[in-house]
């Protein structure tokens, strides 16, 4: 072993004066940091992921966690991360896996966009006193309407509307599969979206029977592995999403490690217990846009043209023309997943380097669709790093119809973003299938937490709109006039079509 060990990421210590020796830390840490020897709790800091489960469960606040207790000689280019990745690969000769979203310290465009508010010349609107409309319809809309006069002289609508999903708030929960996350996580979110009148995605993991009561608020996913897909599954969903790509790993497929394929997961996915579920990089029946068009039509035909079909793509450099191509198909919405999008497992090199920010992708897609006169043909759903109601408001002002959240919903369930989702050891019962861990998450309580988060954001969005003198979400959508860029360069402002602060 010429490489030796790398410095531990965390140092865990227990204040022995505070500790009451209850052993909750040992019980709760699924990574095996704590163990009891005789009457002493011993600590193996090296195993710590920083998930903070022990800290959250310690009744005496006796545990302290220090990040990077020992660091490398500082160097601006050869960072700790770079050196450790090299050491890992020198050992293994393999691809480095990672979880959650892009972990690089790149500037966040959302943080450099500022929202507007009214002063004097136009009154702000108080959402507590006046109606505030957030209702959003996702799906195809006619570009113009035709009317006819009936014999009795009444005006009647001649144009037929395509099926649309009705959202009470423009926040949905993105696709996180049963397998990647636990059934209790999915149940928590399903109960929340049903209560709130919005939607969540199943991910590529089929639809577990326990979710049937919430199926009218679930969007079923058809991804390249086609796991869990049959006619029954398609018919249960409120809408169908074809997943082409994912922000955390554009251009590659998916991998659910065998250890996460429990009996229940195996049933929902229709694969053997313990087998790795590998989704290929491309759909093997989609090699061009016309193949996608066929798949969309096949799915619509199978479900009698009653359900909207979405197409999810990763935000890559050419995202705008790709979205414009999708708009010309029978698809009803395009879901764009930015390069900060989360994942249960992705090669680190993809997660941290491939794709473009969602803010830029929304701006260029909305612009392209308008230039080509097809904006009404398709709804834009933005995802990948939406952290707050401000990110939500800015996404809509840039041109999105609604957003999907993922990581934010998991954090509402307890996730502390430790990024070890692919290990099946999630101590919060979220990204794991181990029954003892899953049982830590009570779906009734989880539902309240997720629902609280979405309600809180919805109130904040109402207040932001009211302050901007806007009482319906349509008037925020694409309203880049109400955004200003702060410390963004000229090229970026041009692409976002946003004026700099002060202008």
């Amino acid at each position, binding site marked *: 072993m010429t490489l030796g060990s790398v410095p531990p990421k965390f140092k865990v210590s227990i204040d022995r004066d505070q500790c009451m020796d209850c052993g909750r830390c040992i019980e709760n840490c699924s990574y095996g940091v704590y163990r009891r020897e005789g009457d002493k709790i011993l600590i193996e800091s090296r195993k710590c992921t920083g998930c903070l489960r022990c800290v959250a469960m310690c009744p005496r606040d006796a545990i302290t966690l220090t990040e990077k207790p020992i660091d490398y000689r500082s160097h601006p280019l050869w960072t700790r991360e770079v050196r450790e990745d090299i050491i890992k690969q020198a050992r293994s000769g393999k691809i480095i896996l990672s979880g959650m979203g892009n972990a690089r310290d790149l500037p966040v465009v959302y943080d450099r966009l500022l929202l507007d508010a*009214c002063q*004097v*010349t*136009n*009154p702000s*609107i108080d959402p507590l006193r*006046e*109606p505030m*409309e957030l*209702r959003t*319809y996702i799906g195809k*809309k*006619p*570009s*113009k*309407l035709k*009317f006819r006069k009936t014999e009795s002289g009444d*005006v*009647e*609508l001649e*144009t037929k*509307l395509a099926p*649309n999903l009705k959202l009470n708030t423009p926040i949905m929960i993105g696709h996180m599969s049963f397998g990647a996350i636990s059934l209790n996580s999915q149940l928590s979110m399903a109960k929340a979206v049903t209560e709130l009148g919005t939607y969540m995605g199943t991910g590529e993991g089929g639809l577990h029977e326990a979710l049937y009561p919430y199926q009218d608020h679930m969007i079923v996913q058809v991804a390249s592995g086609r796991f869990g897909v049959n006619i029954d599954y398609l018919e249960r969903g409120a809408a169908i999403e074809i997943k082409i790509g994912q922000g955390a790993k554009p251009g590659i497929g998916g991998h659910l490690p065998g250890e996460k394929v429990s009996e229940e997961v195996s049933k929902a996915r229709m694969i053997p217990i313990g087998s790795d579920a590998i989704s290929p990089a491309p759909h093997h029946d989609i090699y061009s846009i016309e193949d996608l068009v066929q798949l969309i039509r096949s799915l619509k035909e199978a479900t009698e043209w009653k359900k909207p079909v979405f197409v999810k793509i990763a935000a890559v450099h050419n995202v705008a023309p790709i979205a414009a191509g999708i708009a010309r198909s029978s698809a009803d919405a395009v879901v764009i997943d930015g390069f900060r999008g989360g994942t249960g497992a992705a090669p680190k090199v993809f997660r941290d380097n491939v794709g473009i920010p969602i803010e830029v992708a929304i701006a260029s897609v909305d612009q392209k669709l*308008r*230039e080509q*006169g097809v*904006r*009404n043909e398709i709804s834009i759903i933005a995802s990948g790093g939406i952290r707050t109601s401000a990110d939500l408001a800015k996404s809509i*002002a840039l041109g999105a119809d609604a957003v999907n959240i993922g990581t934010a919903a998991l954090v509402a369930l307890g996730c502390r973003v430790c990024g070890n989702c692919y290990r099946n050891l999630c101590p919060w019962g979220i990204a794991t299938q181990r029954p003892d861990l899953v049982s830590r998450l009570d779906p009734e309580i989880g539902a309240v937490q997720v629902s609280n988060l979405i309600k809180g954001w919805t109130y904040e969005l109402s207040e932001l709109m009211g302050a*901007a*003198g*806007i*009482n*319906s979400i*349509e*008037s*925020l*959508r*694409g*309203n*880049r*006039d*109400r955004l200003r860029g702060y410390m963004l360069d000229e090229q970026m402002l041009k692409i976002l079509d946003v004026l700099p602060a002060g202008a």
Partner: protein
Amino acid sequence: MCGIIGFIDRTKSRMDGSSIKAALSLMNERGSGDGAGYAAYGIYPEYADYYALHVFFDNLGEPKKKVDELLEQWGEIVHQEEIPTTPQPGIKKVHIPWRYFFKPSEDLMAGKMASENDVVTYIVMEVNANVKGATICSSGKNMGVFKASGWPEDVANFYRIEDYKGYIWLGHNRYPTNSPGWWGGAHPFNLLNWSVVHNGEITSYGTNQRYVEGYGYKCSLFTDTEVVAYLFDLLGRQHELSHEMIVKALAPPFWDDIDRMPAKEAELNKAIRLTYGSALMNGPFAIVVGTENGIVGFTDRIKLRPLVVGENGNRLYISSEESAIRVLDPEVKNVYTPRAGEPIIGRFIE
């Protein structure tokens, strides 16, 4: 702030501009002396078949040469002249107001420009966006817009507004807040036969602007009101919606109200909101639009700006203030304030 007036005589009996001037000046508290204007329909009966293009020139050299060339390329100028004005101490003549009577050539109507209106719309967009020193401020038939920076009475006297006789009049007394006080930014805003006077601020401007620009309109006059004229042209002329439907699209009922409507009516209103969501106008406003068939007045959905209506026989008056209507017609009957979003429509009697 701003004060607005709309007038129509449904029998097309014409009225001169003196009482509009008086009524608008009465609302000087709503203005700041930075802009005022009038639109009058029925003023050029001798040229009724030609587009009357009112243009502000910075000078009669290069800008005019370019406009002349563009018009001659696309059709025939049957008459042109400087719009007669009388110098006023309160008005600095920064532009030379000019008018052309123009007919587009049928030979050139093809493709995207299949009609006279398309050609004229193109010319307006082209001049206003790309010809430096020239701004077309009205482009309808048998109508014209007269506006400048100044108080309403000064602008009226400058243009000798009492010399014109119209069956529709719009007036606007401006207090600019979100754009500079310049001649092009004064109201009414016009495209073809659509003219708009507006009190308020459109908080959805960015959305509306992006929407109309997708259909080839160019917002180049630095004022939110411009977009209203283009929305009316797009929905009214290109999409052939009735005035009632246009108002439903621009100031639609709330979803709570739609949910309570009978199924068919709810479906129609839902379809309008889904299709024309980007045309919905938000923020405080009261607006009167002049069209070739009459006038349409309406306010925002929660009525954050005043609008009063009065009637007397064949005459319909819409204004920010009842006092202004009473100056126009001391005998006015049936004065009332419409509900938020309710369209007030005055049409000619066939």
